């Protein structure tokens, strides 16, 4: 907190003038960006529709109530599929993410080039939404649960490996040094020094990712990759709004369940 000497004695200001100008400048830039972005979006918006929205909302809203409970039996299989996509996808991803993470962390990687390649794989798989992977996989392996599972798997490799390698890089090196001092080999240093420190994180990441994936798996059906998304897409297309409500409620329930399980398991692991 800068103090300035003036003729009347020291004067306190919260920030140096330079920093203050920078901050004002920053806000200005931010404002300009916001305005610009809003302009762009505005141009492409048919404002008539937007003003009509409340009417639309109440119209559709009316049609969505009450939920069509008779539709429920048709939803059990899709829910089962959705959960499987998430679970198996996460499991496959974790099996791959752990070795990738070890090869990517700067304290366990065998070589800089290996690290660079692994980091690229992590970013590449993370950047693309699983829906896009699902789109491509439906072309390759055909519509169905397999496409969805692989899509979730690919996306999750990046998501999991990133968190895991960050935690590997944050371990306490003294514990590893002690194992080295007893005469332990590199592998033993890994098992006794590094692994015990990262194992809880690895388990936590797996469960955390699974929870996110349950949510993500619900929409893969939109491109035909299995799960409850198929029903959702179909019901919306035929404007069967009461069915849509039922589906939304089921999705809500599934996500709540997965969050509950995730919180409980992670609480137990710590």
């Amino acid at each position, binding site marked *: 907190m800068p103090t300035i000497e003036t003729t009347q004695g020291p004067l306190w200001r919260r920030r140096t003038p330079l920093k203050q100008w920078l901050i004002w400048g920053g806000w200005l830039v931010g404002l300009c960006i*916001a305005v610009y972005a809003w302009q762009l979006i505005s141009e492409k918006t048919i404002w008539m529709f937007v003003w009509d929205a409340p009417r*639309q909302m109440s119209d*559709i809203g009316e049609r969505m109530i009450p939920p069509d409970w008779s539709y429920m039996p048709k939803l059990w299989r899709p829910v089962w599929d959705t959960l499987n996509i998430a679970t198996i996808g996460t499991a496959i991803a974790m099996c791959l993410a752990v070795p990738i993470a070890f090869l990517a962390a700067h304290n366990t990687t065998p070589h800089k080039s290996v690290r660079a390649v692994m980091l690229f794989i992590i*970013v590449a798989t993370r950047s*693309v939404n699983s829906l896009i992977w699902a789109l491509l996989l439906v*072309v390759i*392996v055909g519509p169905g649960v397999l496409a969805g599972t692989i899509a979730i798997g690919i996306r999750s490799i990046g998501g999991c490996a990133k968190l895991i390698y960050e935690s590997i890089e944050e371990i306490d090196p003294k514990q590893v040094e002690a194992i080295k001092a007893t005469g332990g080999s590199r592998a033993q240093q890994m098992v006794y020094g590094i692994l015990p420190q990262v194992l809880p994180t690895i388990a936590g990441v797996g469960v955390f990712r699974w929870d996110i994936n349950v949510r993500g798996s*619900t*929409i893969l059906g939109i491109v035909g990759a299995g799960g409850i998304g198929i029903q959702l897409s179909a019901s919306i297309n035929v404007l069967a709004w009461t069915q849509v409500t039922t589906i939304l409620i089921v999705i809500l329930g599934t*996500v709540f369940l997965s969050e509950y399980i995730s919180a409980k398991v992670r609480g137990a692991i710590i």
Partner: protein
Amino acid sequence: MSEASLNYAQTWKKPHFIKSSLLRYLIYVGTVTYFFLAIYTMDVNWTRVAEGIPRGADMISKFFPPDLSDSRGVILDGILESIWMAVISTIGGVLLSIPIGLGAARNLAPTWVYLFCRSIIAVSRTFPEVILAIFAVKFFGFGPFAGFIALAIGTIGFWAKLLAEDIENMSKSQAEAVRATGATWLQWINYAIQPQVLPRMIGLSLYRLDINFRESAVVGIVGAGGIGAHLLTSVQRYEYATTATILFSIIAIVITLEYSSGYLRKWVQ
């Protein structure tokens, strides 16, 4: 330390993580059964897969080289649209989240406000942005406005929740100290709450920008603007070179965003 202590045990086993052996076996058996069932009920059409592999290899080979021609400037347009959509949704979403997050903090808000805000957060968090986008399109028409609405709501679910948690976890003594000076409620927020939560929330905003960009690339698939629609059509028309361009652009932008956000975060800290 007596001399009679000559008879020491010769074997040792590490105690299990899950102490109760019944629970442990139940979990093992349950897990194996589940995976068995899950894989068994996975309806895989293996002939289709077999046919598909060469098709897939063909597709991937068409990715290189990617088609950078973009004859009608459509791709660039779409990508820029996605970027700006992400930016405005993050800004709008964060602005909306501030009051909702404040209202969702147990130690700040009266109970009915707390419950109301928490339910808004719960609903906006539960549904993936794509589902929100489908409804936004129905209500607001096709185009990036629907995407903006969907992503902004998604941002609220994320940001407001974390803000509320941060406020609930803040240091009570600091808050008490400011209150003891006789500050008004707003001053209290500005001097006690804001300094504690701001650094992390800025970092989270940058993270959310990253997420919003990735989502903005897909909401186009359901008509909510951005590059998603072009991606979909390029795949449907087998124009895989174009698909590759779009994919690589998305990856490149995400990498750029990550680096700059890391840099910005350090500067803010």
